């Protein structure tokens, strides 16, 4: 379907569209800011940036409401922001501050915010899938009507937990969406070397799950696929597997020299397939925004990040006596 047709079919109003563009820009600024903070030695440990994958995060979360849940991954900053998680508290968490979402105990890989249905990032590859299956089971058993969307990477689909979760969700017809961000690599392992199949989506058919592969850098396509999946889930028709093709611009984590791929490949994705540029073009050509407004949105996001960093830096470290709290309920 052409962008124009999609545009009409999705029936999004200008406010929605601007908000989505803003969220994508905010995610990028967030990641760029973190990169700087890391280089300044203000963030310890590691972190996994999702620059280049803004359309999947924002597009997949757009059809969800606050009751709907997500589970996320080690590369989860974008998912959290898209689900409505407070950015100030996210930066605070990354700086290990007590005002962080997890009181400074979680860090980058464990940001969670139950209030907006963010069941948490996860340091274990594919672990979010069975957790999501459980949350979807709760929805079904208590007739709560919410859906669960599980984010994971292409690498995660070679874990047993992926296969077991798809099967379980399928036989129980659970309201869940398995959303694969296929960014072509799991650390250094390319999808071509790590699987012998033409797409991740084909794996859904083994479990009787409707599946499709979409362009994950076109947010309209992402919204369309997710909206359909949400609809299917809410009508009691069970899970969907979505494979969204995208690319991570940065290395796997901060220590990655990216020897397993070429700079040409990177350039191509950054130039021709930037999801933010692509969305901006669509919005400009449909007269939703103009160039000036785009610049304003960028400035606004930059300012929001500045405030978030100030908030986090002003915050206190957790006191030592919290070392032994929150272990047991």
């Amino acid at each position, binding site marked *: 379907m052409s962008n124009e047709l999609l545009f009409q079919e999705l029936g999004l109003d200008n406010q929605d569209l601007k908000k989505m563009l803003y969220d994508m820009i905010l995610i990028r600024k967030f990641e760029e800011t973190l990169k700087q903070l890391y280089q300044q030695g203000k963030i310890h440990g590691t972190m996994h940036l999702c620059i280049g994958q803004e359309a999947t995060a924002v597009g997949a979360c757009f059809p969800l409401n606050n009751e709907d849940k997500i589970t996320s991954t080690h590369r989860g900053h974008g998912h959290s922001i898209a689900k409505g998680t407070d950015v100030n508290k996210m930066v605070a968490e990354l700086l290990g501050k007590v005002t962080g979402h997890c009181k400074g*105990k979680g860090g980058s890989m464990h940001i969670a915010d139950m209030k907006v249905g963010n069941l948490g990032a996860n340091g274990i590859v594919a672990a979010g899938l069975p957790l999501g299956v*459980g*949350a979807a089971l709760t929805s079904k058993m208590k007739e709560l009507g919410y859906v669960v969307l599980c984010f994971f990477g292409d690498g995660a689909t070679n874990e047993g937990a992926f296969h077991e979760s798809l099967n379980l969700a399928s036989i129980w017809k659970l309201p869940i969406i398995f959303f694969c961000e296929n960014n072509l690599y799991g650390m250094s392992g390319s999808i071509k070397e790590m699987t012998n199949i033409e797409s991740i989506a084909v794996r859904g058919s083994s479990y009787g799950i409707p599946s499709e592969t979409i362009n994950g850098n076109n947010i309209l396509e992402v919204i369309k696929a997710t909206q359909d999946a949400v609809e299917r889930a809410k009508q009691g028709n069970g899970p969907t597997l979505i494979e969204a093709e995208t690319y991570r611009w940065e290395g796997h984590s901060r220590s990655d020299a990216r020897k397993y791929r070429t700079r040409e490949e990177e350039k191509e994705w950054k130039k021709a397939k930037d999801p933010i540029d692509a969305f901006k073009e669509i919005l400009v050509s449909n007269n939703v925004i103009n160039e000036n407004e785009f610049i304003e949105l960028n400035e606004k996001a930059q300012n929001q990040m500045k405030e978030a960093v100030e908030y986090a830096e002003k915050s206190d470290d957790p006191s030592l006596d919290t070392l032994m709290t929150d272990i047991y309920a």
Partner: protein
Amino acid sequence: MREISYSEAIKEAMTQVMREDNDVFIMGEDIGVYGGAFGVTSGMIDEFGPERVRITPISEAAISGCAVGSAMTGMRPILEIQFSDFVVIAMDNIVNQAAKMRYMFGGKAKVPMVVRLPAGSGAGFAAQHSQSLEAWMTHIPGLKVVQPSNAYDAKGLLKAAIKDDNPVLFYEHKMLYNLKGDVPEESYEIPLGVADIKREGKDITIIATGMMVNHAVEAAQKLEQEGIDVEVIDPRTLVPLDEKAILESVKKTGRVLVVYEAVKRGGFGTEIVSLIAESDAFDYLDAPILRLGGVEAPIPYNPKLEKAAIPQVSDIYQKCLELMNK
């Protein structure tokens, strides 16, 4: 009071709580018409239906994660792992997810779930179906570990475990399933973290866990004829551990034997010995602390070898005689 078996007591605990609380459900392989590998859940599907007695595929990684996910969103799942040995396939969800969730999220999640784990040797199932791995779980902050030794305790402890807001590993011994005992019909709970004195005595304290509690009591009865008065302490829960009850008994008798079925090296009894050694009860000891545990080998198939792999009543008897001569 009526007598029922350990397995019936476990079923009664689950049934009573499920009648009171719609959020509680059970999940596991073959737990429906089959009643689970040991018949513990037999008939439950007739009362509660397939929604709340959820038969799962053979998928330990998925069902354990599903239990965690449903627990953190408002349900209270009870997961049966068919043989406790298979929990190793579910370990990520127990060790890295259930146990960590609350802490990692700064207190903003709780994971009220129970994992039922048929464990132990004696039935000829050999090395992959007979282990006692409970010490592994005690090493993980965020988990609670329960090990009932009789029907009465099993019912009361399981009820407390289901009502607890934390992940609880509930170790059932396969050879105890048919053991009958007095169990009240009405609902009762045994709080986690409270030990029980299974037999009072003044000469020796035996701290035994799981199946070994029963062996220790039997040995104590025999030792009585030798004029040796043995006290048997059953911690009942390994985490939280009733340290006070153990140390008080040690101070009273001055002689200690720790007995457990798991491999002696690195088993939970080792922890109990350390507890005593590090406490002021150490000053009350009249002899070195002795330990009896399983041999450092996988559980063998041959019945004679299988028996030789774990402490028997006669071994406990012998060790107590040794203790008195020191």
